């Protein structure tokens, strides 16, 4: 299909809603006088040129494991180290979520963050399965660095990375019995996809990937830990390191090709596989909410991806300038992800906001906790974003953003049981009390900063605040809603604004817009 794209302010506004957390009517008008090709290449250039966000203060280089257990470590010290490490982990995870959210809200190059978010849902790591926070940061840096770069390089950056190696048990996988976890997800989810490999391929890939571990930077003096310490208690560092003696150097047959493959060979093979191009391009199409019923767009993107040896920006250019992207079916039909909804609201209403753990919890309660996807497959997106519980949180957003108040029920009803409790009744009750204390502390820490959000009604408009309810509602809708409204929506909003106290008119209108079905769409 080579239908012509009708490029106007409405098309520009559609583009902004998908790749930039939404824009203003003014921005769309400025875009409309140029060409889509020109705008898309500008957005990609901006994303590539933008300086990297500053490294958070808590990130340590090199990272030091404070939980190592040495022969002379007493049980009391061990407990204390573990407690401190737990506190540090909670604090750092909170700071990490805020760090990224802040970047998304403030960045002048939103496409880069949107792409980083896409890759975060593709090359997943679940924070709940990680006992240290720093790898989640380094993984995020890798995703951002390569977000619009070369797929093969991105794949290697996330594979030889502490987060992935710990999460999918690549760390310490050895020749004797290679761990299949990463090998399976590499083929099933990250590259070629179901139907394009067999169980034998997984076993062979696992062999080729054996021999990697995480260690201190080369040359670091080491102090031996106790013999039976688990990985968390003996790990010396987070630097991916190849240990030849643990690698299976024999021949492997992968996709019918045989050789003495190692990790980089496998990544080469799977990255170049045509099924990988189709899978990645198909996921991009779905993520950006484009309707491509006959996979024609996917095929054109995959062609560009393969021709450029996996240049992600080339595939994205095809996507964002395609007639499918601007077709009627693709407009106003993408259910915003929780992150897109929150960041978009902050940006479009120009809220004066500093990301706090409470703010980060908003997206978590809507079903998208940053750094903590539900499982290795990431967030399914689409209608899966909406269930009674997550929609209720969406409709409670105004209380958080305009009143600075956290509604009840934003946390799961309880914590997970992470270890078995002792059978002895007294010991069990004491431990439960300690877990409850820890949980209370964790929640209190998360909530201590509350919300740092200020809403200035005048900033929600390009000009002065309109006097008439009709004009006020129309101006807000033009800025914030990308979809054709139902007939009664506008009338209901106008009626509510007309009845609102004079000082509250803009706030009421914004509140109610946030609780419309229309606002959930981009």
């Amino acid at each position, binding site marked *: 299909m080579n239908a012509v794209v009708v490029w106007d302010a409405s098309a520009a506004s559609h583009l902004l809603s998908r790749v930039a957390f939404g824009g203003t009517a003014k921005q769309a008008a400025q875009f409309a006088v140029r060409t889509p090709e020109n705008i898309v290449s500008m957005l990609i250039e901006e994303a590539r040129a933008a300086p990297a966000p500053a490294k958070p203060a808590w990130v340590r280089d090199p990272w030091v494991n404070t939980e190592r257990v040495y022969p002379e470590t007493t049980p009391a010290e061990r407990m204390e180290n573990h407690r401190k490490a737990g506190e540090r982990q909670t604090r750092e995870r909170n700071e990490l979520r805020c760090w990224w959210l802040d970047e998304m809200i403030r960045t002048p190059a939103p496409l880069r963050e949107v792409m980083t978010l896409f890759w975060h849902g593709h090359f997943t790591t679940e924070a709940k399965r990680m006992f240290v926070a720093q790898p989640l940061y380094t993984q995020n840096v890798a995703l951002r660095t390569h977000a619009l770069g070369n797929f093969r390089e991105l794949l290697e950056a996330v594979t030889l990375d502490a987060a992935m190696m710990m999460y999918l048990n690549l760390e310490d996988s050895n020749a004797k019995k290679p761990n299949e976890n990463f090998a399976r997800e590499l083929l099933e989810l990250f590259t070629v996809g179901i139907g394009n490999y067999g169980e034998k391929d997984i076993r062979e890939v696992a062999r080729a990937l054996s021999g990697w571990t995480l260690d201190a930077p080369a040359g670091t003096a080491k102090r031996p830990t106790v013999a039976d310490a688990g990985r968390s208690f003996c790990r010396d560092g987070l630097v991916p390191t190849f240990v030849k003696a643990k690698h299976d150097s024999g021949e492997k047959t992968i996709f019918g090709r045989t050789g003495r493959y190692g990790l980089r060979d496998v990544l080469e093979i799977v990255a170049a596989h045509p099924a990988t191009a189709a899978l990645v391009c198909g996921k991009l199409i779905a993520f950006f909410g484009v309707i491509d019923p006959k996979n024609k767009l996917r095929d054109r993107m995959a062609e560009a991806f393969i021709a450029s040896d996996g240049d992600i920006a080339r595939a994205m250019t095809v996507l964002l300038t395609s007639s499918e992207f601007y077709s009627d079916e693709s407009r106003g039909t993408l259910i915003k992800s929780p992150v897109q909804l929150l960041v978009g609201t902050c940006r479009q209403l120009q809220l004066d906001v500093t990301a706090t753990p409470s703010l980060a919890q908003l997206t978590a309660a809507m079903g998208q906790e940053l750094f903590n996807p539900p499982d290795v497959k990431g967030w399914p997106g689409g209608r899966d974003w909406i269930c*009674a519980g997550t929609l209720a949180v969406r409709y409670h957003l105004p209380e958080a953003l305009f009143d600075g108040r956290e509604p009840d029920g934003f946390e799961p009803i309880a914590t997970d049981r992470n270890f078995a409790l002792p059978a002895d009744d007294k010991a069990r009750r004491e431990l439960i009390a300690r877990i409850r204390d820890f949980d209370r502390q964790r929640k209190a820490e998360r909530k201590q900063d509350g919300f740092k959000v200020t809403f200035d009604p005048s900033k929600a408009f390009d000009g002065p605040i309109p006097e008439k309810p009709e004009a006020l509602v129309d101006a807000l809708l033009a800025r914030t809603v990308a979809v054709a409204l*139902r007939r*009664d929506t506008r009338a209901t909003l106008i009626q509510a604004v007309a009845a609102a106290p004079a000082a509250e008119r803009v706030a009421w209108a914004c509140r109610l817009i946030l609780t419309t079905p229309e606002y959930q769409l981009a």
Partner: protein
Amino acid sequence: MLPKIDRRSFLSVGALTATVPGFLSQTGRLFADGPKSHAHEERVLVVVQLAGGNDGLNTLVPFRDDAYYKARPKIAIDKAKSLKIADEFALHPEAGDLRKLFDAGQLGIVPNVGYPNPNRSHFRSMEIWETATPEKDARTGWVGRYFDAECRDNASPMLGLQLGEKPAMTFSHVKNRAVTLTNPSLFRWDTGPVGKSMDQLNSVRPTENGQLDFLQRSGNDMLTMSRKIQEALKETKTATEYAPFNFSQSLRLVAQMIAADVPTRVYYVSLGGFDTHATQAGRHAALLQELSQGLGSFIADLKAMGHLDRTLVMTFSEFGRRVAENEQQGTDHGTAGPMFLAGGKVNAGIHGARPNLTDLDEGDLKYQTDFRSVYATILKKWFNADAKQVLGGDYKTLPLFG
């Protein structure tokens, strides 16, 4: 558009609200005040998903089988510590409450359940269990089809109720009759003018945009359900103590809702984290303790409140794990595993033989009972439904009920 109809036939088309938005869905809030249903007489199923692939061999331990100890030199459950429940089977040491249920005649176990040509992907295998359609890529869940086929005269907007974030495929159907919720405290709303406008903005006005119509319906259903949930939780107190963890507390909510006659036939609760590829002993013990204590409290609670005889719990997991342990003292993805059934009317005991650990398929168990036999038994004997229509085939029923 609709002819004049009496209340009875009106209720019978209520089942179509999910696909006929407009007029019918606008009446959602009226239904909420309709005549009290006979929910208290109806049977309830509680589906418990063990997500990640539960290690069946360390759950229901074949403690007389040397091959078991040989395949798992480091992680096999110590024979002396395992909890013997039958000649050839013992439970994991942390499953003490499950043994109590077994001894009290409230727990049935079907060992070695699976399906032909097992898939070892979490996602595909979970889909297979939830859709009960291994052969093709089905889009509907087995309970979704049951609701569609058998519950058309039930107007409840929440025939299925799931506690969690990610809607389970078990309920999937174009005519979705299930809701998913995380924390019930979320369902309280402003009662002033802003709240009233919010209600209006979420009444259903059909458009050309399918996504917008989906969101309108979801908003309308959610606000309707909010009141039901608040009423149910206000009125009912549970009778037993539950451990302060997610899964146990979710079961507590389910018990409250069952006791409050919420118009729900099937509940769905998940316990996740079973993907134990490395150093599995500690984590698996914690998970089985949570499962066991959670179900123990739940069954005792329902018994005390007088609802146990109309409640059935069924556990499932997408697969068991490989027979041999791996190098990291964990287990990789495998095939068949046991299912637990608990309730007041269950035939306690073990319904099947122990798996053969010396006749394997590439290191994995060959299943003995097809999971669709368990579903068929529940559909036929528990819900008195047409299992063949729902499952698209005839499956042997098992003697799971008296």
